[in-house]
């Protein structure tokens, strides 16, 4: 692999995304992406006694499911990159206790899954043949840790975020027939001083725009090279802001850009 421009890495032997899968909660199951999820849950507890235990169960079942779908034995997986929102990433570390694969815990908040794919790709160019990447989040455990008790009678402003309850996992393979990860552009932290905990889209949009534009500059590509440009967690306000920022820097992403959060619910 070699470095392109300021931040981008180009792979000489691009890894293949062999398999992927997801399990989500009941609210996500009612959204427009419902048919793309492998499994949906009836409630947020899934038989467990606490939100945190439920979240651990979700990531455990998701990773087991993806490994089974791929046909590869877990012993042939060289390492796993996984993370979540909770303190000490307990959801991933407890959930993957029995997986018996070398474990790299990562924390990137809303960027955790892409971060694990980036690190997993780099691993395939060095020591790994197969890498498992996984992440999870749970609305109730996130609210409990970061915001307010669920039963508190407070009003949420229109811009407030709704954390997804669910887990996604993917297996990367050194050899395969695609889809390939050809380039990765790790992004910088960009803090424009948004302190409103109820407007995370606005807090995150500048970093997204900065990473995207750096990617275009490093690779020499323009937005319409891509069939789709997708962000994970900006929401409809963050999405609008991202389009505006890109436009102010001369990049028109409006026609092929979409955001997962604004598509989820």
């Amino acid at each position, binding site marked *: 692999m070699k470095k392109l421009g300021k931040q981008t890495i180009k792979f000489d032997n691009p890894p293949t995304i062999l398999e992927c899968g997801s399990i989500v909660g009941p609210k996500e199951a009612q959204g427009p992406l419902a048919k793309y999820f492998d499994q949906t849950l009836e409630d947020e507890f899934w038989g467990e006694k606490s939100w945190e235990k439920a979240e651990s169960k979700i990531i455990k079942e998701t990773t087991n499911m993806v490994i089974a779908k791929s046909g590869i034995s877990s012993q042939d997986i060289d390492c796993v990159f996984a993370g979540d929102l909770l303190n000490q990433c307990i959801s991933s570390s407890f959930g993957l206790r029995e997986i018996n694969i070398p474990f790299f815990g990562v924390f990137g908040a809303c960027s955790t899954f892409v971060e694990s794919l980036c690190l997993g790709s780099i691993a395939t160019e060095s020591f790994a043949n197969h890498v498992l990447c996984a992440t999870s989040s749970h609305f109730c455990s996130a609210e409990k840790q970061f915001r*307010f008790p669920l*039963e508190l*009678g407070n009003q949420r402003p229109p811009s407030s975020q709704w954390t997804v309850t669910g887990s996604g996992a993917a297996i990367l393979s050194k050899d395969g027939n695609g889809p390939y990860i050809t380039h990765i552009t790790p992004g910088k932290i960009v803090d424009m001083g948004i302190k409103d905990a109820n407007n995370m889209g606005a807090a995150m949009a500048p970093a997204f725009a900065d990473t995207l534009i750096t990617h275009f500059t490093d690779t020499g590509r323009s937005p319409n090279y891509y069939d789709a440009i997708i962000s994970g967690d900006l929401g409809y306000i963050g999405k609008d802001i991202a389009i505006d920022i890109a436009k102010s820097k001369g990049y028109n992403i409006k026609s092929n850009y979409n955001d997962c959060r604004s598509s989820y619910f």
Partner: protein
Amino acid sequence: MNPLESKKTYQDYVDKKSPNSKILKNCFNAFWVGGLICTIGQVILNICKERGFDTQTSGTIVSILLIGISAFLTGLNLFNKIGKFAGAGSLIPITGFANSVVSPAMEYKSEGYVMGVGGKMFTVAGPVLVFGISASILVGIIFLIFNTQSVTLV
């Protein structure tokens, strides 16, 4: 127009972009729900006075009853629906205080009955007691300073 020129320009840009809550509707709901809760309190107060209780005791009875009802409604998962609708209408009366005590206690039940329910009860409401009681102590002291002619120190 570059919204990212500086932190200040970005924050102004975000404020313009963010949708406003429906403030008129929210104020209307807060008004009548809050007014209704206070009126229920007044009815209880009037009943107490008719039964011969003095003002201080009547007020305490109103507090205890409203707090008990709010705790009950929070436990039944009903209060947060009221709160979502009424906003300040349920937060500002003493019902909001009760809800802010019960809700974290319920949430942390999974961590045990001593450290969970017992320990986390005041995560939201704690500041109310700290500042309210401290303010009352200061009021008492200032009153004392300005009235030392009519009061003896010990």
